[in-house]
């Protein structure tokens, strides 16, 4: 849910957010009915809350985590948001199984309290943050991002978090630090598939420093106005909307600053298929399939044609300059 105050200034409403007249009228009628006392006081308060609801409906499953409006360019796409059910039952989180339904079924064993994230390596302020401190480090914002999986499907997800750059500024990396490495939890006791031969554990991801400092690079604690569900990387994960989904590490326990390009999980498993950058790029195919198009989960009908994939997943205007002059066919 977007919390809007006068300080945010005038906010353009997307046409998709405008309630159809018929729905408005029937809601009015319902509320009139309730106000007359026919439905009781409890229902009346529910009705008034419903009337205020904005584009993102809270699923009401987990603790609320509200995000304010973001001033970052490209932070809020107006595309239709993927159903919460699809976003929480169709996941790649191999620590809980390789089938996309597995994380939703198995991730309940993940223990997210207590949780801390260690900041290590080439920084002036190495420190272990408790999750509570990390959440409070900077104001939470709502970011509605496209998510493009390397497998050729996509979603639109309303994340809650803040730019990773806020944390990086606080911990003051040394000028020699060129890369940021994200180490995620690998606990065989709570993650049944840690130890499977698919990947090396723990799952490690990394960014170049300028990528990590980009305001769109989100350190996320929630989605759909609530804290992250376990299967989506609770309690804290990265979200990098211009890169394939696997670049966004889940359930992060360590952020390390280094001067050497870190070895990342999928790159170690198959270097010819998954490059360090892994930016969404319709012109560079995966060796085993085309990346020119994608299926938007839950949106198009069964027989709809796949939609064209956009350069940098549609974030070219914001992130394109990070890769100026680079041969993206070589640095895939």
């Amino acid at each position: 849910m977007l919390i809007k105050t006068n300080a945010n200034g005038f906010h353009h409403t997307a046409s998709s957010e405008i309630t159809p007249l018929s729905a408005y009228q029937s809601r009015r009628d319902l509320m009139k009915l309730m106000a007359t006392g026919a439905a009781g006081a409890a229902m009346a308060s529910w009705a008034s809350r419903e009337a205020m609801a904005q584009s993102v409906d809270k699923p009401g499953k987990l603790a609320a985590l509200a995000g304010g409006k973001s001033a970052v360019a490209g932070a809020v796409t107006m595309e239709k948001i993927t159903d919460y059910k699809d976003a929480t039952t169709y996941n790649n989180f191999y620590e809980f199984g390789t089938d996309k339904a597995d994380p939703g079924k198995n991730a309940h064993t993940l223990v997210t309290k207590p949780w801390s994230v260690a900041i290590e390596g080439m920084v002036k302020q190495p420190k272990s943050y408790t999750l509570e401190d990390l959440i409070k480090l900077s104001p939470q914002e709502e970011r509605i991002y496209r998510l493009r999986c390397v497998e050729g499907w996509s979603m639109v997800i309303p994340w809650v978090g803040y730019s990773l750059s806020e944390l990086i500024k606080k911990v003051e990396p040394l000028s020699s630090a060129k890369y940021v490495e994200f180490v995620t939890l690998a606990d065989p006791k709570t993650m049944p598939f840690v130890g499977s031969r698919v990947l090396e554990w723990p799952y490690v991801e990394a960014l170049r420093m300028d990528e990590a400092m980009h305001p769109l690079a989100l350190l996320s604690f929630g989605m759909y106005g609530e804290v992250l569900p376990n299967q989506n990387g609770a309690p804290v994960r990265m979200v990098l909307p211009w890169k394939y989904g696997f670049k966004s590490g889940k359930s992060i326990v360590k952020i390390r600053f280094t001067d050497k390009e870190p070895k990342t999980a999928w790159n170690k498993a198959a270097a010819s298929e998954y490059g360090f950058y892994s930016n969404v790029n319709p012109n560079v195919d995966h060796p085993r399939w085309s990346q020119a198009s994608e299926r938007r989960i839950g949106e198009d009908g069964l027989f709809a044609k796949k939609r064209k994939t956009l350069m940098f997943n549609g974030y070219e205007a914001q992130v394109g300059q990070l890769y100026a002059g680079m041969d993206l066919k070589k640095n895939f």
Partner: protein
Amino acid sequence: MHPSAKVVLFALCMLPISWLIYRVASNGAGANPQEYLIRATGDWTLRFICIVLAVTPLRTISNTPQLARFRRMLGLFVYFYVVIHLLSYSWFDMGFDVADIAKDIAKRPFILVGFLGFLLLTPLAATSFNKAIKAMGAKRWQLLHKLVYVISGLGLLHFFWMRAGKNNFAEVFVYAAIIAALLGWRVRQYLIKKKSAAQTIQARAAT
């Protein structure tokens, strides 16, 4: 065997596709119903290959020659499911764009192998009636239908390659073990036959 056995078997063979359609129609197929349909029809093609290859061993071991009359229908159901598998892929993944499909077949070895399996299966399905057997002669017809062994190998390779990306071979090995056992039984039968034939010749020579 009861005369209605064939009808019952036909209905049983239609159950998987009915179930799949029901799941998709009732929104029970998950977030990506297209992928669900493509994968499930592929699974059922492999399962029907196992079932049809099991008919002859089952017939011989249980001494139930009546089972032979179900083999053709089961074989045709392999083709039925592979056609739906291919149609689902062509439609849901490729939007029936022939140029895209051709590119995809050339690009992805596992698609190529699967497509090859389908191509080889087509003449088998097309000669599944008595007139074809008569016209071809039983010997040649049988030889043609031995292609099913090649096809099951291609099907397995297709599945293996598809799962290679996630190093997830448990299911592949189950199908491979079943098919290997069914083929191994045939090899054993062949060797026993050869041995007994040789013994007969020896016995004749001795008298």
